């Protein structure tokens, strides 16, 4: 009954709202089935964590010298994915790339939701999670872990604000339409009426935030790289790790956006918002990132190989031809060869092509973190020390699956509460066509092209 009312109201709204607000009031059975399956995985993971908490980290496959494993790999991976949204959306906003308008919201939402699942990973990894607050009470600022606590805290806060502020006009639209939970949206819209003054303020705040989040985002993954680089361990102690981690993070982030876009497009029939041009342009960015990633990986491994320090070489050969050769070469395939081949051709820079490349990059980037954490851990610098090994237990695999499922579930549920494409930005995009044409015309020299009069 209520839904019929809401649908009737929706039918009277403009076309953008009709398409983009539809998921808020209409849910397919497929959504419920998927959500239930994901929820079951989350519960299973929670049970696995209960066992770990009760009996100790002995329930994992970790040992000495393999002190860090799946949880730390997932920590780096999830926080890496979070670079999708905010960084891409901020860079595109700052550079006034008009094609960004339909993709920023879905990307920013990935960021905010995945940070949480990344940030809990080191806590899952703690021997004494009950003493977590010692990080505040007995903080030692010399520890890179503390730098990380601060930068991730700052990043989460700024990204949440950066997601919320540009959402205000859309929340106000939902509030005014009365199609869903009027009191909730009345609260969330925070009195936004879309007056010219409010709109001008909104744009100014967004402009400021877009610039502020860029250095914060870069600091986050730099510091995660530094956690490893600050130790004296072979193939961790590398000055390249800060930027290498940032590049890898953006690479996996773009992959995550593309996969999410393909799924959203299919599920909510957003073909008119996620157009071939979006996949083409993001595909080009992925191409650049795969080349940059390969450049860093090559530089890192060549330097180690050429220097040929015995301790470093044990780790190096373990990766290249030894016990970890399979994950190492699948990583190269996933992070470089597959995205490079697919994204270098216009014919495969389509939704389907980017979906395949995106999945390949995500698998490759997870393995990249595996190849950083595990081979170094099992090859301690003092060579007399016996070489270790690592086989993750079902507890670790379950918790990892639960974290991934939890993220997807939360993302799905979020699409039921906020339009996944920013309605006001799409509309604004249509209004500013004339202005953008003028701006683009200004790029060219006045001698080549007749400039429209009153050039600002």
């Amino acid at each position, binding site marked *: 009954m209520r839904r019929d009312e809401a649908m009737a109201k929706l039918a009277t709204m403009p076309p953008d709202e009709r398409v983009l607000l539809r998921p808020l009031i209409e849910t397919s059975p497929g959504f419920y089935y998927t959500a239930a399956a994901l929820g079951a995985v989350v519960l299973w993971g929670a049970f696995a964590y209960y066992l770990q908490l009760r*009996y*100790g*980290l*002995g329930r*994992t*496959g*970790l*040992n*000495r*010298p*393999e*002190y*860090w494993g799946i949880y730390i790999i997932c920590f780096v991976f999830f926080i890496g994915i979070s670079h999708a949204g905010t960084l891409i959306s901020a860079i595109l906003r700052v550079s006034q790339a008009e094609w960004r308008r339909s993709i920023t919201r879905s990307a920013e939402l990935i960021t905010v939701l995945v940070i949480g699942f990344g940030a809990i990973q*080191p806590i899952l*990894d*703690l*021997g*004494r*999670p009950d*003493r*977590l607050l*010692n*990080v505040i*009470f*007995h*903080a*030692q600022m*010399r*520890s*890179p*872990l*503390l730098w990380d*606590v601060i930068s991730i805290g700052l990043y989460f806060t700024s990204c949440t604000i950066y997601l919320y502020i540009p959402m205000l006009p859309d929340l106000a639209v939902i509030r005014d339409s009365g199609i869903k939970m009027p009191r909730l949206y009345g609260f969330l819209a925070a009195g936004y009426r879309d007056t010219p003054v409010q709109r001008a303020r909104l744009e100014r705040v967004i402009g400021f935030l877009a610039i502020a989040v860029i250095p914060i985002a870069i600091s986050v993954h730099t510091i995660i790289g530094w*956690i490893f680089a*600050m*130790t*004296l*361990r072979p193939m961790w102690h590398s000055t390249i790790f800060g930027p290498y981690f940032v590049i890898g993070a953006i690479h996996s982030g773009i992959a995550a956006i593309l996969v999410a876009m393909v799924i959203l497009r299919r599920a909510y029939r957003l073909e008119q918002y996620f157009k071939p041009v979006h996949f083409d342009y993001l595909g080009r960015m992925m191409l650049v990132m795969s080349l940059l990633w390969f450049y860093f990986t090559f530089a890192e491994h060549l330097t180690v190989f050429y220097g040929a320090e015995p301790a470093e070489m044990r780790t190096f050969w373990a990766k290249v031809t030894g016990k970890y050769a399979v994950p190492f070469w699948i990583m190269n395939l996933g992070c470089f060869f597959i995205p490079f081949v697919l994204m270098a051709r216009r014919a495969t820079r389509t939704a389907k092509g980017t979906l395949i490349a995106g999945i390949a990059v995500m698998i490759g980037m997870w393995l990249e973190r595996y190849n950083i954490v595990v081979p170094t*851990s099992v090859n*301690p*610098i*003092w060579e*007399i*020390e016996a070489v*270790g*090994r690592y086989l993750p237990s079902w507890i670790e695999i379950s918790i990892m699956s639960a974290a991934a499922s939890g993220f997807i579930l939360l993302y799905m549920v979020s699409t039921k509460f906020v339009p996944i494409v920013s309605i006001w930005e799409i509309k604004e995009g249509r209004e500013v066509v004339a202005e953008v044409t003028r701006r683009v015309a200004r790029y060219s020299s006045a001698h080549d092209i007749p400039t429209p009069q009153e050039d600002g």
Partner: protein
Amino acid sequence: MTRWGMVIDLDRCTGCAACEVACKSENNIATVSPEQADGGRAMSWMKVMTEVEGEFPENTMQFFPRPCMHCDNPPCIRVCPVVATYKDEEGIVGQIYARCIGCRYCANACPYTVKYFNWYGPEWAESERRHLNPDVSVRPKGVIEKCSFCHHRLQKAREDARAEERELREEDYQPACAEICPTGAIIFGDLDDPNHRVAELKEDPRAMRLLEDLGTEPKVHYLRARQ
């Protein structure tokens, strides 16, 4: 200034592992099952490492008893987010079990891999349980532990010396491993006190330290075996 340190004469070490056993019983080190030990979960603050050179029968074997190096410039204490591992004014690198959050960053930072993690709560055989050392706290599950140079013995020796109104002598404070070593391969004392044997031995031409070029300044010195 006192700087407690150790000299291990590899020429005298027979690899009997009495130091390991003495350390385990002195410091209430938990026993793990054989399966756990196979999985890399065994705990041994003092560990006799073996290095085999050459192929049988033309081979030689070298034993390296390996406690915590108690570095003067310890990489482990810098990375701890909560100051649960620290260096005291006499150079002993200690652990605060009650504060450790179990992140194992220090374990990864240590180039000598001397840090042990309590993967499970500690367990002892019933026969061992009755002989736990009351001077050493047992560690709960989820925290890092390692060799303390039997720091509790120093506290006791200090008290005794004070009660008897005399200076602390070299023999007053000896860790369990040094005390038990049947060949006298482990020598312990104040590296800065010229009256202590370690002060002289560390200047021996055979003296070396592990991974010296890392700049960690370990306070455990080894005397190379004569060939």
